[in-house]
């Protein structure tokens, strides 16, 4: 089980993972103001909650730390309409399943990230739709 970043986590800029959820998208709030677009982190944990809502979805996971204690991480996704076109739905994530999500961390140091991609425990990417070349720039 992976947890904190930057030291405890297997994080950072894996090109092969690219962009199941697109680059930082349209933010109601400003992405650039709240998230650090120069870093990417990844956390693995158990899904507590998945909210599929506008302007952004939210994935809340429980991450077990090496010392056995637990902490909650939150991942903010793109809008559901964008995700639906990539194969996501309201029930694409189930409470209790283990996932790894990566993305851009909050600037304020909180355990909050803007989700770039999500994988299930077996490595399967969440959302089956392949991203278009033009979307990768978004």
């Amino acid at each position, binding site marked *: 089980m992976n947890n904190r970043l930057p030291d405890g986590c297997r994080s950072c800029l894996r090109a092969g993972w690219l962009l199941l959820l697109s680059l930082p998208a*349209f933010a109601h709030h*400003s992405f650039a103001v709240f998230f650090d677009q120069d870093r990417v982190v990844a956390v693995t944990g158990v899904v507590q909650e998945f909210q599929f809502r506008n302007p952004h979805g939210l994935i809340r996971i429980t991450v077990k730390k090496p010392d056995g204690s637990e902490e909650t991480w939150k991942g903010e996704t793109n809008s559901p309409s964008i995700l639906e076109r990539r194969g996501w739905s309201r029930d694409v994530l189930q409470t209790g399943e283990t996932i790894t999500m990566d993305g851009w961390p909050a600037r304020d140091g909180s355990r*909050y990230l803007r989700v770039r991609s999500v994988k299930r425990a077996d490595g399967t990417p969440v959302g089956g739709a392949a991203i278009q070349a033009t979307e990768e720039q978004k």
Partner: protein
Amino acid sequence: MRRLVCWLLLAAAWPVAAAPPDLSGFWMPGRTIDTDPELAKFVPKGTVVMHDTGAAEFGLMDFGGLKPTPDAMARARAWNPRAGLTISTACLIPSIVYALQGPFPIEIYQGRDLMVMRLEYMDMARVFVMGENLPDWPANAPHTKTGYSRAHWEGEQLVVVTTHLKAATITNNGLDHSDAMVVTERYRLADGGKTLIATQMYEDPKVLENRGVRYITWRRTAGDHVHAYDCDPSFAEEYAAP
């Protein structure tokens, strides 16, 4: 008979106004561009090209070359992004100045007298009243997030001028336009109709000392339509505490 043939030949040769390009359809956000040779001809010298189209956004106090007036600069400096994200504000609709350039699709219905542009973002719908020399609205007419848009064709380009926009963000980082904002857009088809390219040029002397333009592209996508966008303000609760 000979006279009839003459009339038919004359009728065939009579100049007929070419039908304008058909922009109708569903358009997904396209690639990011910095300019377009056809549309750039209509961008006045000194206009700053904004590089925040699509997902890109500027950080605090970065306005991409726009020059805010001293008052606007002071408001931007005082802007607190976290304080501004509350249940009351999380689902506020921006004006088309910000909404058009984001990474959401649009859908166009083109008619002779009216055109409708639906934006997936925030379920917005714009109406373009077609015609040249259409009357201005009075200055005190209602201002809305979509404004009052008059449009006409200049050859292959659709020109849309929008006034009566309600004050809202320009760059999503504390710089807001005023009710005096005027947006001029030009749209043209490219790649044999597969691509739609636009310039969105905006002027607001109450807030900006210069003029900005965005280049925006979309790609025609068959078989899709805009989705619903039900905004849930409880999203702001995630930002209530660090």
